[in-house]
């Protein structure tokens, strides 16, 4: 397979496009590797420590100076603060409220609310609020 690698102008423009006649084990491995290249975060749940892949994260919330990371079905705690995670995570993650970061790739749809806020429905059917002041940033990330 011919491999082309070009330099992207920004983090937002980084992408990998694979054109293949059919899905093979090698390609699936490559996709899995690329998808997990965003790194992992050390989290704990019920006194067990895990390394959570960033692309499994739905959203992160700070409550009473504790930081909780939510995946499709689970909730973990991490020692990192929200502002630290913001710098550790890639451009798919967006600050959507004062105490919350959301993975844009896990947003199924949004619905506008009064006061310019958006109610976001995630892929696991949970709902979160995107504050008015962060809607513009979301649009920019989506290239609107």
């Amino acid at each position, binding site marked *: 397979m011919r491999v082309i690698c070009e330099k992207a102008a920004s983090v937002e423009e980084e992408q990998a496009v694979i054109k293949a006649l059919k899905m093979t084990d090698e390609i699936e491995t490559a996709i899995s590797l690329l998808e997990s290249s965003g790194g992992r975060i050390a989290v704990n749940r019920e006194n067990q420590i895990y390394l959570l892949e960033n692309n499994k994260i739905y959203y992160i919330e700070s409550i009473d100076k504790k930081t909780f990371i939510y995946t499709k079905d689970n909730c973990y705690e991490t020692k990192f603060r929200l502002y630290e995670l913001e710098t550790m995570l890639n451009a798919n993650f967006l600050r959507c409220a004062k105490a919350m970061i959301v993975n*844009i*790739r896990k947003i199924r*749809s949004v619905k506008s609310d*009064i*006061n310019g806020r958006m109610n976001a429905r995630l892929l696991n059917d949970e709902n979160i609020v995107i504050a*008015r002041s962060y809607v513009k940033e979301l*649009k920019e990330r*989506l290239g609107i």
Partner: protein
Amino acid sequence: MDKNKAKVIFEQTMIISTGIFFMIGIGGVITHLSGGEFSLDWYHPLSIILIGFLCALPTLFLKEIDGNKSGFGRIVLHFLCLLGVVSFAGRIFRWYTELSGYMSLVVTFIIVYVFVWLSSLWMGKVDENKINKALEDFHDEE
């Protein structure tokens, strides 16, 4: 005051002032076409911008005290705060001197209030459609 709050106040001031100027403009055209005289005092344009600013403050205040809730009661409280500001400022700037003048001010205020809400809702709906269309290609498959 952080940048976002200043931005909200500025945007609200502009939207409300534009709405009031628009209504006064319409009023001027109607008065002229019906043969009447229409004029503004020197301080009216600036007083309108000041009203826009004062009306923007309750919006921000209500967001601060109850940022995660929405509902009819909140809108009614917001409406009454703004009506209070407009009535008080209208008295100071002599926009009305008798009851009939005050009633036309209230009617104008209601029209501007509805205009601002409808504009905001429409802009929100446009954003919603654009974002949802972009998300279709962007979100993961689960």
